[in-house]
């Protein structure tokens, strides 16, 4: 093999690659926040008194989990303008990531809610708390604690999935990297550097999840 490594173009492009990292992190954080909101909201609505709402949540979860993300992001990117809503690639990508992650989060969080002992709920009701209060004050935290490792790995996946947003030219690491690569032809160096950056981002994310676990979920259990 006669390939000589030349990181010069990568080093020259470092500022824009790092900015791409920030773009990726931004997409990931936006997507995760939206996914959490959809996840918790979906879990509540999935047990709604109104049957049509339950069906809607069920259909949403099934559709999202059984179609490719690339198709979803294209659909949102090209379908929203038809509905009169024209969004930039970055907000579109956040919405797509949030919707996709949210569908998985509904199923994961629901598992946590179901793991909560019925007695906890009854104790809350017997104390005169309303159902919504019981969910928010009594069920939610232990439920999230129970499934937090699964949720965290789902969110690492969501973070890596941000690279698909390059397909609609959202501003993130993969699209920046592709541009650098096509201008310099240093494929190995550019994609190698991107790989390293993605690894670092994932690692940082897991550190943050570890800190959240220590900070919010570290009450003792039997």
């Amino acid at each position, binding site marked *: 093999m006669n390939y000589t490594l030349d990181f010069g173009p990568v080093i020259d492009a470092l500022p824009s690659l790092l900015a791409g990292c920030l773009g990726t992190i931004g997409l990931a954080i936006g997507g995760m926040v939206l996914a959490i909101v959809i996840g918790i909201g979906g879990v509540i609505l999935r047990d709604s008194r109104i049957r049509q709402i339950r069906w809607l949540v069920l259909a949403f979860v099934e559709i999202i989990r059984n179609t490719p993300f690339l198709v979803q992001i294209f659909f949102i990117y090209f379908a929203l303008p038809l509905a009169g809503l024209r969004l930039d690639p970055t907000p579109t990508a956040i919405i797509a990531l949030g919707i996709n992650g949210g569908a998985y989060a509904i199923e994961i969080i629901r598992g946590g809610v179901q793991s909560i002992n019925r007695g906890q709920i009854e104790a809350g009701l017997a104390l005169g708390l309303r159902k919504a209060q019981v969910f928010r004050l009594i069920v939610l935290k232990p439920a999230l604690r129970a499934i937090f490792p699964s949720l965290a790995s789902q969110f690492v996946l969501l973070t890596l999935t941000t690279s698909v947003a390059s397909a609609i030219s959202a501003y993130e690491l993969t699209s920046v990297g592709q541009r650098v690569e096509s201008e310099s032809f240093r494929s190995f160096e550019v994609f190698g550097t991107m790989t390293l950056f993605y690894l670092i981002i994932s690692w940082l994310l897991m550190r943050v999840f570890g800190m959240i676990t220590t900070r919010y979920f570290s*009450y003792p259990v039997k």
Partner: protein
Amino acid sequence: MSASSVSEPHLATKVMISMTHVEKWYGAFKALSDINLSVRQGERIVLCGPSGSGKSTLIRCINHLEAYQKGRIHVGGILLTDASSTINSIRREVGMVFQQFNLFPHLTVMQNCMLAPMRSLGLGKAEAATTARKYLDRVRILEQAEKYPAQLSGGQQQRVAIARALCMRPRVMLFDEPTSALDPEMVKEVLDTMIGLAEDGMTMICVTHEMGFARQVADRVIFMASGSIVEEAPPAQFFSNPTHERTKKFLGDILRKH
């Protein structure tokens, strides 16, 4: 009933709980049939009977953890309907203690006691904390206030659960086998707490097989079988002179076990 109120001067004549012709179905299964029960203010009732006889179902109907299908239940003069506002106002008056304690694991002892007074009664934080300290002291566990439930023994957890219910200042306390999940050496501390409550005049319905407790504090012992009230009598009479065959057999079984 009027005869016993003469012999028991601590009892007011005010009816706190009344159940008339109450029926409860789980689907096609009739769990309670024609329950008639009247509990006066300050009265202590012990409810016993074989497993599956409907004891839990009966007391859970009183705070509507279970809906009932026929008859009427009044608590503190209010008719218990399926309306959530009625249910909630009755639940604020009725404390419940469970076999499995059901403390909230993510909250400290103190927070367990403050949650409902703040969120359900709308008490301020300071007032809720004062109330919590008062009742934690009363069940003699104040020194553990900053611990989490998992750091306490079963007996301590159950005393916290009693304090948590008392923090709502209920007019009635329901106990569903509060000592059944406890190691034997912890039963006494919980029973002593309950005896203390009884001495302070709390209206109580206790599902328990602790017959010593029944003898000591009960005004009436009620025996259930197959979803019906079979026998009810003051403890002296209940234990020495049970009239029904099923009561005799049940008492025999209980005595053999203990």
